[in-house]
């Protein structure tokens, strides 16, 4: 049952059209910084492009996918019409308006502060208002997911919340609290400076607030992907979900451990002391637990599929897997990228090892592999799964989907692996240009060319995605088969009450955040000398 078809389609379409624009910008950036191109006359164009690419990829795409997918899950998993459809449309239009406002400001060159904002550099207030509208629009979604879950619970007292909805609402609560950090940074520190009410800003404090959002947002991004892993992958490849409980444990652990870890982004910063840096490093180690649990559970679920198809022995089940199935390919590629990216992540979070790679091209490689690689690939699969329901298109062209998935995987590996390598050699990130005539940099030039080529494959893959989705609207309408989520391998087990609600986990989330951020924030806010003059960006 999917009634809010237009609502879900609107979210996905705006997300993917913005994504298409941003990926073209990304490829342009790789091309102009490579030795293949004469450098653009105005390096500001490069940073303008980075700001747009990052803002769309980090805020617009994942937020809209999480919202659209969330509305679909609410109806499909709870089997009742979505409450508050009008509010949902309001949230959608706020996100669209905010995106447009930020986009125009960026295009005019009045917001080249990159998507991480970088005070004391200050952009036009319209850019920040745009970002705030995107976030406020998404808060409408958070509220609606909570309202819909509670309405269902009232109708079904004592029942176990379906796993897909459980993860979906966990993602919504995670986002609500995650976004508070950047919201405080923008509203309390940046906007007053941007509007000209103050002419100084505490740049160190702003970075600490941003770090609150900066790492937890990654777990908000990955929630939709994990929901696909647990509740769609096993069904799509003909297997069973190994453990429903493990899915719930993973989702609530993300709630608890996502937030109090952001200071690991500030290891090399002077405004936070060693003690809190260590605490955040240890917490970051803990947040790898839900992913390690997920890897086990999903691989076990895939193994069930292989054995149901007649695979035997220690490795025989791997050969028996449905390798011609796009979802099988996608989950395999996603896990390979998650493996490399996760190993890199453990290096980044390590209190000491981070010094080698901090702010080098390694970091760019790391998060492209994890987010654009492992997670966004599963966004595509979510769209492919929903599309026949949304458009009545009948089955989508499987071989074209496979080609798209292959290109995304190969492109992402070619893009991000050279970045890891040159990051270790000390190549800085966020550079509009490298001087390839310098004897120390010349040997690294090939890596930038390789990444440009990888990026080209990604652009082709993105266009195939949009082509497949657009063409589905034009096929003759057929009634879609009922949508199902994965079955459990051992159904009927009792779900502990603690894993059927969020109270304890939300309390831990908020408590740990306050413990891990309270002191650094209070200390920094009280430092007078930390306020420094603002630097307006773009002529005003």
């Amino acid at each position: 049952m999917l009634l809010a078809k237009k609502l879900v389609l609107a979210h996905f379409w705006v997300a993917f059209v913005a994504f298409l624009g941003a990926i073209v910008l990304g490829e342009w950036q790789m091309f102009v910084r490579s030795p293949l191109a004469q450098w653009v006359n105005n390096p500001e164009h490069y940073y303008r492009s980075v700001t747009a690419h990052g803002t769309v990829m980090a805020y617009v795409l994942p937020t809209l996918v999480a919202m659209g997918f969330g509305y679909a899950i609410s109806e499909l998993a709870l089997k009742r019409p979505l409450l508050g459809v009008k509010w949902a449309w309001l949230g959608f239009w706020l996100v669209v308006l905010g995106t447009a406002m930020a986009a125009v400001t960026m295009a005019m060159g009045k917001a080249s502060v990159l998507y991480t904002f970088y005070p004391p550099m200050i952009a036009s207030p319209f850019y920040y208002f745009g970002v705030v509208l995107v976030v406020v629009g998404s808060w409408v979604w958070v509220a609606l997911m909570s309202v819909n879950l509670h309405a269902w619970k009232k109708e079904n007292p004592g029942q176990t919340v379906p796993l897909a909805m459980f993860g979906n609402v966990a993602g919504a609560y995670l986002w609500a609290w995650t976004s508070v950090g950047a919201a405080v940074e923008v509203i309390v520190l940046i906007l007053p400076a941007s509007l000209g009410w103050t002419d100084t800003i505490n740049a160190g404090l702003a970075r600490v607030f941003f770090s609150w959002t900066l790492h937890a947002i990654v777990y908000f991004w990955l929630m939709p992907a994990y929901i696909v892993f647990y509740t769609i992958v096993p069904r799509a490849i003909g297997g069973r979900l190994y453990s429903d409980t493990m899915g719930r444990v993973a989702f609530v652990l993300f709630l608890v451990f996502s937030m109090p870890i952001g200071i690991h982004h500030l290891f090399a910063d002077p405004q936070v002391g060693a003690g809190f840096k260590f605490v955040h490093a240890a917490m970051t180690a803990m947040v790898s637990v839900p992913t390690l649990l997920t890897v086990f559970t999903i691989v076990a679920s895939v193994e069930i599929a292989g054995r149901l198809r007649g695979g035997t022995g220690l490795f025989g089940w791997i050969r028996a897997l449905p390798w011609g199935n796009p979802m099988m390919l996608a989950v395999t590629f996603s896990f390979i990228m998650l493996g490399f990216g996760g190993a890199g992540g453990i290096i980044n979070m390590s209190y000491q090892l981070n010094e080698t790679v901090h702010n080098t091209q390694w970091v760019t490689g790391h998060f492209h592999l994890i987010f654009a690689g492992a997670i966004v690939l599963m966004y595509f699969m979510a769209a492919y799964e929903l599309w026949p329901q949304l458009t009545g298109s009948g089955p989508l062209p499987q071989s074209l989907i496979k080609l798209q998935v292959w290109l995304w995987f190969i492109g992402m590996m070619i893009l991000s692996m050279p970045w890891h390598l040159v990051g270790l050699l000390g190549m800085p990130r966020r550079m509009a240009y490298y001087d390839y005539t310098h004897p120390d940099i010349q040997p690294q030039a090939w890596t930038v060319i390789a990444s440009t080529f990888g990026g080209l494959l990604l652009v082709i893959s993105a266009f195939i995605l949009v082509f497949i989705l657009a063409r589905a609207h034009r096929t003759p309408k057929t009634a879609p088969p009922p949508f199902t989520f994965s079955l459990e391998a051992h159904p009927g087990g009792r779900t502990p009450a603690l894993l059927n609600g969020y109270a304890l986990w939300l309390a831990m989330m908020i408590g740990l955040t306050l413990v891990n951020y309270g002191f650094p924030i209070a200390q920094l806010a009280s430092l007078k000398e930390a306020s420094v003059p603002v630097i307006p960006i773009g002529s005003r």
Partner: protein
Amino acid sequence: MTAATPPAHAHSEAVAIAAERRWVYVVGAIIALLILMMVVTGLHWASMPPSRVETVDVKTLHLKGEFVENNLGTTLGTDGKVTVRLIAQQYAFMPQCIVVPAEMPVTFRGTATDAIHGFVVGTTNANTMLIPGFVATFTTTFKKTGEQLMPCHEYCGTGHEAMWAKVQVLPPQEFLARARSGERLSCVAS
């Protein structure tokens, strides 16, 4: 359904739970080992990220105190400690070329006058952020002699990509011979 659960099914569920539990233990052990490694290397090698919260007034930075122009560069203290002081601003480091010894601990003290900057020295672990209003301090030892690049690694405005400095790592004897005079060392071509 529960009444009809075949014994084989119940058995496989027990196996599944046991396997799952073993994996949880393995994961717990991995995490514990990682944290232990951080503690041991932190305490035993004193290997830590910059650890002090120290402020400085950007408005008077050039006029008085540690970061006035004639105090920037490398000095050999009377206690034999090597200190490098530097400033980052759009779009250059001061000094643009830094001389340090190999195989001796070198303490960097740096800050920024305007935007956020940062640097990494070649393939070494010398890597820090320079935030206006704060002094970044860290100590490192260079293993190899020779010249290394030192780019600004944090976006600081439209001229960011042109902001590079150099670090010359000298053999300790040569460095000490040059530094004994008590003067500040730098390798900026004059």
